[in-house]
């Protein structure tokens, strides 16, 4: 992350602590989309992920005075997003247990129909939705946020070996599912 970006965040955080709520609006604008993408990687549901994200930002506002101006705000925020999303996932797993083998097959079929008019972004997000939460999360942190393994360790709490395994499997599975969804159209996307 660029130093200017980190400094901008620090200035905004200081303003928020001094009572300027509009500064917090700017922080939300800067990080809401990537945060949502990370939450969706884990929860696989846009509505639930957005609810979780709302909760996260309210929590962040409340705890902003505890932020230490040593690390980047993004890393701090994403760690909260990841932890809260995993907690929500645990709650949901306890509540509902579904056999999703047939569900996935029918989803692929429905998506193929739907994908005729979809753009690249939709194909990619649908493929990422099919990956395991850990794989999708690590892929997004590595390729979308461009974090290094060490930073991903900080955000997720995973060991570097687990991150590397998830990156490797994630790449393989992403390619596999993308081929499955697009079939012959894959060459057009690439």
């Amino acid at each position, binding site marked *: 992350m660029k130093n200017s970006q980190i400094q901008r965040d620090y200035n905004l955080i200081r303003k928020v602590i001094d009572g300027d709520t509009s500064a917090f609006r700017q922080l939300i604008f800067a990080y809401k989309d990537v945060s949502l993408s990370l939450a969706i990687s884990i929860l696989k549901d846009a509505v639930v992920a957005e609810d979780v994200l709302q909760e996260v*930002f309210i929590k962040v506002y409340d705890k902003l005075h505890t932020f230490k101006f040593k690390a980047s705000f993004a890393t701090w925020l994403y760690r909260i997003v990841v932890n809260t999303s995993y907690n929500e996932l645990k709650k949901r797993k306890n509540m509902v247990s579904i056999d999703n083998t047939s569900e996935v097959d029918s989803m692929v079929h429905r998506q193929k129909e739907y994908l005729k008019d979809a753009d690249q972004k939709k194909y990619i997000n649908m493929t990422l939705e099919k990956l395991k939460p850990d794989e999708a999360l690590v892929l997004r942190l590595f390729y979308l946020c461009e974090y290094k393994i060490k930073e991903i360790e900080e955000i997720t709490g995973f060991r570097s070996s687990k991150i590397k395994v998830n990156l490797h499997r994630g790449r393989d599975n992403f390619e596999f599912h993308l081929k499955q969804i697009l079939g012959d159209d894959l060459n057009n996307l690439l």
Partner: protein
Amino acid sequence: MKEEKFKELISKSTIETSDDFVNKVMQGIQLQKEVKKQSLFWSFPVIIIVCSALILTILGMLFYTFNTEYAIFSSIPKTPIFLVIIGIGLYYINQLIRFQHYK
């Protein structure tokens, strides 16, 4: 798939929040602030300190006035006044415990 192509594809995976997301968050923050204000007003230590100070002051005043020979105070019955003061104190403590329970 090549690493660069992979990066290019995943970098397109950002998902936008709904249009009113920021407003919803800000509303949530506002709501939380109001709840906090309320809970600060009714916070346990504040209530205990205020009630104790109030009861002690009134008791002190009553003892002082009962021990003096003012005709106006000598006619006031002591026991009911004590009971009322203790009753008010207990009522506030009960309210506080109920508030903490529902919170």
